[in-house]
C-alpha cells in the first residue's frame, strides 16, 4: 500500500515494481502498441492527408512537394463524386437500420433461449463473424444470383414467374453488407443484454405484462446502448463499404471506397487521398456523435 501513490491517483490496488519505477514500467508496457500505431497508422494517415493536398497531374501519380486544394475542389465540382457520396450515405443508413433491427431481434432470441438453442444461435453468429468476407460474399453470389438457389426455389414454388434480380443492384449491395455488419450488431446488443437481470422480465410478467410488452418496456430500453454501439459500428463500416459494392453491385452503385480504389489504380493520388480524408472524417464524426450521445445518456460501454 505504501507505494500506491507512486502509481497513480486513487488506484490503491496496483503496486509499483520494486526495481522499476512505476512510470517507466507503464511506458515500457505501452511502447509496443503506441510505436506500432504511430508507424503503421498515424504517420501513414498523416501522409495520406499530405498527399490529398498535392497538385493534380495527368503525367504522374503524385507531384511531391506541391501544395494545392485541387483534389478537394474536384470533389465539390464533380457531379459524379457528389452522387457517389450521397449514394454511399443513403446505403449506409439503410444497411445500418436493417442490421440494428434484425440484430436486436436475433440477440433477444439468443438471450431468451436456453441450452442447445442458445448455443446454436451464438455459435452461428460467431461463425459468421469469423468467416472470411470473401467467402460470405461469394456464397451470397452463388445463392442469390438469377439462377441461384433462392431464385430456383422461388420459381419452382410458383411464387414468382421469372427470377428476381437480387444482385448487381441496390438489393445485392444491402444483402452483401448485412453479411459484414449483422454479426457485430447482434453481438453488441447481446453483450448488454447479458447484464440485464432476468428477474425484471419475470416481475413484469407477474404484474400482468404480456411477453411482448415486457420485451418492449423492460428489455428494449436496456438494449439501447448496445443498439447504439452496434449501429455506430454498422454505419462506420457501411460508409466505408468496399467488398459488397464491388462484388454484388453494378457500375451504377459506386460507393466512396470503390471510387478510392478506382482513382488509386488510375494513379490520381490526390483525388483518391482527398476522397479518403473526407470519408474518414464523415465516419469519425458520426462515431464521435454516437459516443457522445451514449455518454450523455449515461450508458457507458466501450467497443
Amino acid at each position: 500500500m505504501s507505494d500506491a501513490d507512486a502509481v497513480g491517483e486513487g488506484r490503491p490496488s496496483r503496486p509499483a515494481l520494486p526495481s522499476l519505477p512505476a512510470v517507466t514500467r507503464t511506458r515500457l508496457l505501452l511502447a509496443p502498441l503506441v510505436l506500432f500505431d504511430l508507424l503503421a497508422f498515424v504517420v501513414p494517415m498523416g501522409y495520406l492527408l499530405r498527399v490529398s493536398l498535392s497538385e493534380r497531374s495527368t503525367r504522374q501519380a503524385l507531384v511531391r512537394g506541391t501544395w494545392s486544394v485541387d483534389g478537394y475542389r474536384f470533389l465539390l465540382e464533380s457531379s459524379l463524386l457528389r452522387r457517389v457520396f450521397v449514394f454511399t450515405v443513403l446505403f449506409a443508413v439503410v444497411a445500418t437500420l436493417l442490421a440494428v433491427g434484425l440484430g436486436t431481434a436475433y440477440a433477444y432470441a439468443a438471450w431468451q433461449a436456453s441450452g442447445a438453442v442458445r448455443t446454436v444461435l451464438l455459435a452461428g453468429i460467431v461463425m459468421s463473424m469469423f468467416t472470411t468476407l470473401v467467402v460470405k460474399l461469394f456464397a451470397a453470389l452463388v445463392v442469390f444470383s438469377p439462377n441461384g438457389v433462392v431464385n430456383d426455389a422461388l420459381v419452382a414454388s410458383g411464387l414468382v414467374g421469372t427470377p428476381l434480380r437480387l444482385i448487381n443492384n441496390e438489393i445485392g449491395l444491402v444483402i452483401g453488407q448485412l453479411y459484414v455488419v449483422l454479426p457485430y450488431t447482434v453481438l453488441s446488443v447481446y453483450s448488454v443484454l447479458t447484464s440485464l437481470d432476468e428477474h425484471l422480465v419475470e416481475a413484469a410478467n407477474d404484474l400482468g405484462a404480456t411477453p411482448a410488452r415486457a420485451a418492449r418496456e423492460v428489455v428494449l430500453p436496456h438494449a439501447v446502448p448496445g443498439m447504439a454501439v452496434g449501429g455506430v459500428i454498422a454505419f462506420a463500416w457501411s460508409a466505408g463499404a468496399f467488398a459488397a459494392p464491388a462484388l454484388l453491385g453494378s457500375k451504377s452503385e459506386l460507393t466512396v471506397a470503390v471510387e478510392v480504389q478506382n482513382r488509386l489504380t488510375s494513379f490520381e493520388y490526390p483525388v483518391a487521398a482527398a476522397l479518403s480524408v473526407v470519408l474518414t472524417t464523415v465516419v469519425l464524426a458520426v462515431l464521435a456523435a454516437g459516443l457522445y450521445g451514449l455518454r450523455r445518456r449515461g450508458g457507458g460501454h466501450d467497443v
Partner: protein
Amino acid sequence: MSESGPRTDGGTETGTGTGAAPAPTGRRLGGAAVGRWLFRAGVGVVFAFLLAPIAVVVATSFAETGSLTFPPKGLSLRWYGEFLGSSRWRRAALNSLVAAGGTTVLATVAGTTAALGVSDLGGSREAAVLGLAVLPLLVPGVVLGSSLLVFLGEFDLQQTYMAVVAAHSLWATPLAFSVVRAALSRFDPRLREAALDLGASPFRAFFEVVAPNIRSGLFAAALIAFVVSLQEFIMTLFVSGPDTRTVPVLAWNSLRGSLDPLVSVVSTLLVAAVVVAVAVGAAVAGLERLATDT
C-alpha cells in the same frame, strides 16, 4: 459481467420469446402465440440467411462438373486435387500462414503489454491510449490500405510481408488488446502484488502468476489475431503483391473473373479453419466470452 450462469427455469418458462412487434394488449392468448411463432420464424430466417449460403458453397466444392450448381451434379474431390496441384494457390496458402503467424505474434504482444500498462495511466491519458488503440478498427479498410500503400510505397516496402503483417495487425491488435483487458479485469491484482512482495521479479510475476490466471484470455487473443489475419483481404488487396498475396486476395481476384469451383474449395478450407478455431476458442475460453469480449 459477461459471465451469466445457467439460466433459471423460471426465467425461461415465463419469458419464452415474442418479438418487439406490437401485440395489442387485451387480445386472446392465441394472438400472442402466433406472434411468438412469427418471431421465431423470423430469427430462423436470419440464421439461415447468414449460414445457409456457406453450406451451399461447401457442397459445391465437391462437385464433379466445372459449373457452380446446387445441388452439385455428382460428387468428387477433383477440385481439391486441382487446388493442391496449383502452385499459385499453394503459394497463397503459405503467404496466409506467414502473415497470420506474424500478425499473431505482433498483435498479441502489443495488445497484451498495452492491456497490462494502460490501467496504470488513469484519467485522460488512459482514454487517449484506449482511443488510439481502438481507432484503426473504425477507419474504413480501403482508407487504411491506401494510406499504407502510398506511405510504404515511398520506401518500396509495399508488397512485402512486413506491409501485410502491419495491415493485419492494425485490426488484430485492438481486438487482442480488448480481449486481454477483459481477462485482466477478472484477475485479482493482489495475487501479483503478493508474488512481488515474496521477491519475484516482474517477469517472473507475469509468467508465473498473471499469465496462468489469464491464460484463456491470452489464448483467445492470439486465436482472434490469427483468424483476423487469415480472413482480412481489403487492406491486403492494396499492400500485397504477386509474391505476398494471401488466399482471400487470390480468391477475390479469381471471383472477379468467373465463378470458379476452386473458389468453393478455398472457401471450404477457410470455413473449416474457422470452425476449428471457434471450436477450440469456445472450448478454452467459453462461447459466451468469445461472443461478448471482442
